[in-house]
């Protein structure tokens, strides 16, 4: 049987303002019919560029060498019209962000038919019938009515199903899925992975899966190609890769993946039960006002919890569960509580004035999700870390704060010389360390970390989490650690609270919540989390299926 796709000695170079960037170096890959090939790598490894080359979706600044042979034709040699012919019929693409991959002003039925019209004569009726058929196959309920819906009427997971339907409608031999589940919640991710598996089984389509998530790889892939800095470092069947990785880089990558249950061995922290909690929330309600006359949206609904001094509370939930809203309310950013009570460092946040709360800001540190945007691009790292000291009058200006800044950078293991650098001159992990240094500058009693590692690569994430744990032991601050990733929270938190649609559904120590979850949502969340082990993942998949059927 011939290969569906054969990439030979592919080389891609980009022209950028900073000179040429050699994004892909001499990569050769093959995909057999009905096979799922996962290309794994961290950001900047060239995995997306490789995948986009298969459809020749590269910007004009790219120059490619080598061959991408799809069904016997070299895609890189094709003219514009021939290229259009093979796109859709021979190879289709599923994008990362389903909400931007769909055009908001057309119905999904129209968008599916668009692909059909581009490749043959279909009457309106035929195209519609075909769209309904394919929507049904990807598991959209009531396809006959929903074919006339607009993208915003679907949930995120359903939108991704529609995108997959668009890819499938012309029955291509190969689907390139670029991080198809990264923008989705864990429970939805599991469903989309199931769908992709079914697509392979029922349609016999080969899939090139681009991902950075080892759990997703273990769940779906037959064969894995690992890329690092534009080069292919390892290629192996999935079980062999996980059980006996040969390349050094692969081993490190696998070791860096956070796993559930890694905190079980850790001794529980001794906390003083009599101490006044740093944060107490009692029946906390936060509502966003609706439009004029419309009902508001309740983001946080009757949530109660407390954080003792020196304790790390992990707050877990999917997007829209209200976890970030709670974090921001505690820091006095954005919306105030509209009901119940939220006491932070002795201030009732419902009616505290900004002026009264300002002195307490010294005692609160905040680490933001995206280290790239949380630094003023025009200030050096040194100036940014000195800002809190200057604002609270501990230092006259950035220069006077330099010794303390050096100390802080040292504490987060950044070279002191980095104080003179600008944020864009640091890598993501380094920036997040600098962000930690800034939030710790005033030695806060409470640190709020809002998804501090979700923008980072796995290997970088591991070192930042270790650093966080170490700093917490050293400085003894209380922390609210917000994340969507159970495994990450499990590594750091003394107690875990699970939020679901604004409600706190479960709270307890790590082993309690993760070992024997009581609430069905927590159970489903745990079962949905793909583990980086193909054999174990196959068993978990079965458990999840049973759990879903029980619902």
């Amino acid at each position, binding site marked *: 049987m011939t290969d569906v796709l054969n990439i030979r000695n592919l080389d891609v170079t980009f022209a950028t303002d900073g*000179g040429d960037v050699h994004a892909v170096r001499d990569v050769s890959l093959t995909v057999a019919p009905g096979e799922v090939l996962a290309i794994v790598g961290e950001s900047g490894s060239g995995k997306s560029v490789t995948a986009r080359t298969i459809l020749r979706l590269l910007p004009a600044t790219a120059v490619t060498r080598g061959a991408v042979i799809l069904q016997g034709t070299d895609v890189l040699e094709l003219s514009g019209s021939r290229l259009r012919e093979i796109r859709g019929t021979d190879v289709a693409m599923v994008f990362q962000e389903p909400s931007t991959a769909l055009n908001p002003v057309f119905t999904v039925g129209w968008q599916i038919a668009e692909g059909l019209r581009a490749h043959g004569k279909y009457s309106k009726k035929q195209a519609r019938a075909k769209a309904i058929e394919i929507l049904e196959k990807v598991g959209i309920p009531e396809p006959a009515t929903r074919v006339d819906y607009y993208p915003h009427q679907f949930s995120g997971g359903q939108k991704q199903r529609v995108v997959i339907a668009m890819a499938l409608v012309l029955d291509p031999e190969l689907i390139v899925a670029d991080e198809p589940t990264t923008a989705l919640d864990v429970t939805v991710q599991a469903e989309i992975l199931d769908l992709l598996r079914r697509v392979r089984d029922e349609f016999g389509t080969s899939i090139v899966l681009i991902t950075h998530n080892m759990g997703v790889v273990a769940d779906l892939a037959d064969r894995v190609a690992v890329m690092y800095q534009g080069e292919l470092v390892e290629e192996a069947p999935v079980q062999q890769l996980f059980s006996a990785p040969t390349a050094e880089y692969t081993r490190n990558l696998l070791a860096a993946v956070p796993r559930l249950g890694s905190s079980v061995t850790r001794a529980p922290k001794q906390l003083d039960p009599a101490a006044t909690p740093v944060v107490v929330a009692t029946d906390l309600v936060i509502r966003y006002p609706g439009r004029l006359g419309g009902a508001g949206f309740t983001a946080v609904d009757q949530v109660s919890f407390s954080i003792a001094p020196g304790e790390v509370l992990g707050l877990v939930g999917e997007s829209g569960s209200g976890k970030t809203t709670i974090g921001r309310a505690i820091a006095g950013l954005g919306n105030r509580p509209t009901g119940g009570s939220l006491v932070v460092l002795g201030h009732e946040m419902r009616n505290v004035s900004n002026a009264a709360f300002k002195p307490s800001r010294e005692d609160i540190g905040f680490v933001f999700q995206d280290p790239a945007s949380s630094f003023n691009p025009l200030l050096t790292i040194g100036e940014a870390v000195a800002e809190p000291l200057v604002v609270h009058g501990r230092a006259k200006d950035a220069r006077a704060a330099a010794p303390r800044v050096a100390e802080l950078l040292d504490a987060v293991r950044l070279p002191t010389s980095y104080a003179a650098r600008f944020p864009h001159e640091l890598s993501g992990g380094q920036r997040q360390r600098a962000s930690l240094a800034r939030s710790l500058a005033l030695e806060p009693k409470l640190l709020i970390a809002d998804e501090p590692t979700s923008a980072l690569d796995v290997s970088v994430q591991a070192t930042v989490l270790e650093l966080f744990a170490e700093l917490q032991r050293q400085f003894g601050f209380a922390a609210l650690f917000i994340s969507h990733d159970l495994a990450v929270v499990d590594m750091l938190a003394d107690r875990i609270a699970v939020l679901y649609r604004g409600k706190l559904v479960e709270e307890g120590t790590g082993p309690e919540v993760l070992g024997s979850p009581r609430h069905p949502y927590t159970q489903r969340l745990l079962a949905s989390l793909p583990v980086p082990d193909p054999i174990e993942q196959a068993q978990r998949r079965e458990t999840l299926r049973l759990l879903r059927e029980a619902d």
Partner: protein
Amino acid sequence: MNIRALWYRLPVIRQLRQAVGLQRGMLIAGLVIVGIFLLTALFAPLIAPYGYSQLRDENGGFDAQQPPSAEHILGTTVGGYDVLSRVIWGSRTAFLVIVIAVALSIFAGVLLGLISGYIGGALDRVLVVIADAVYAFPSLLLAIAASIAISGGRSDLWAGVFSAAISITVVFIPQYFRVIRAETARIKAEAYVDSAKVIGTGVPRIMFRHVLRNATRTLPLIFTLNSSEAILTLAGLGFLGFGIEPTSAAEWGFDLNKSISDVTSGIWWTALFPGLAIVLVVLGITLVGESLNDLADPRLRTRRRADSKAPVAMAEASVNEEGLDGAVSIAKEDRA
């Protein structure tokens, strides 16, 4: 940081180094024209053969409407002035109007935009309505009104320059206001403003240290485009007869106005050269402005092609910038 690195970070210099191909050509052409204009304005007394209001030299009075000759390279006007001298001196007036108009409008516009964008609410809405109302006003009409108010229509150098400058200022303030307001509203939602808030930074410090410096990216662009508009307004005023008396300063628009009757009688030099001066300066400044605009946008900016020997397949243009951003991030990310 050494001087060289600092020099390369300056607005126009940085873009000049970045530009390639046609965009570089446009930028250089614009910069050369603007450079000549600035040098002419600066050294007008040295370059011009006569004064702007000079009607006679040691050989006696100038004749009116003389064609170009050795004595008067570009001829003389109907009033007997030397055309070349008037054109050269006119650059000074034009330069003054640009500097005063932009200086008056940029501070007010930026400050209002910053406050309006950052504070928001009712103040913002009122300011936006006022700005929109002013924006709808034709600038020339405003200039005529200002000119009459300041000097009763006929004026000396400063009154003429100020009437043009003030009318332009009134129209320009909303432009700076809108741009800075939009940028401020965007930056207000950035994480680094939030991170300044959580450490307890006061509002003025956030506005000036964190927001303002990041909001001024587009200013060089509006600055150049407004400069050309300032020249056109001044010339329009002069042409309509609200300009500056020839005895107090040279002004291209005034000279054009006086040359209307010449054109029909075959005297081309009195109209051509002041007109050409206006066109060239406006063209030069606009070229600089437009190139800066194109270079500021990564999608419009052309780059040198990646170094590559045959066989080269140029991928087709893609609207999606993702691949490109990815490539840039590779260049920037050194591993932690």
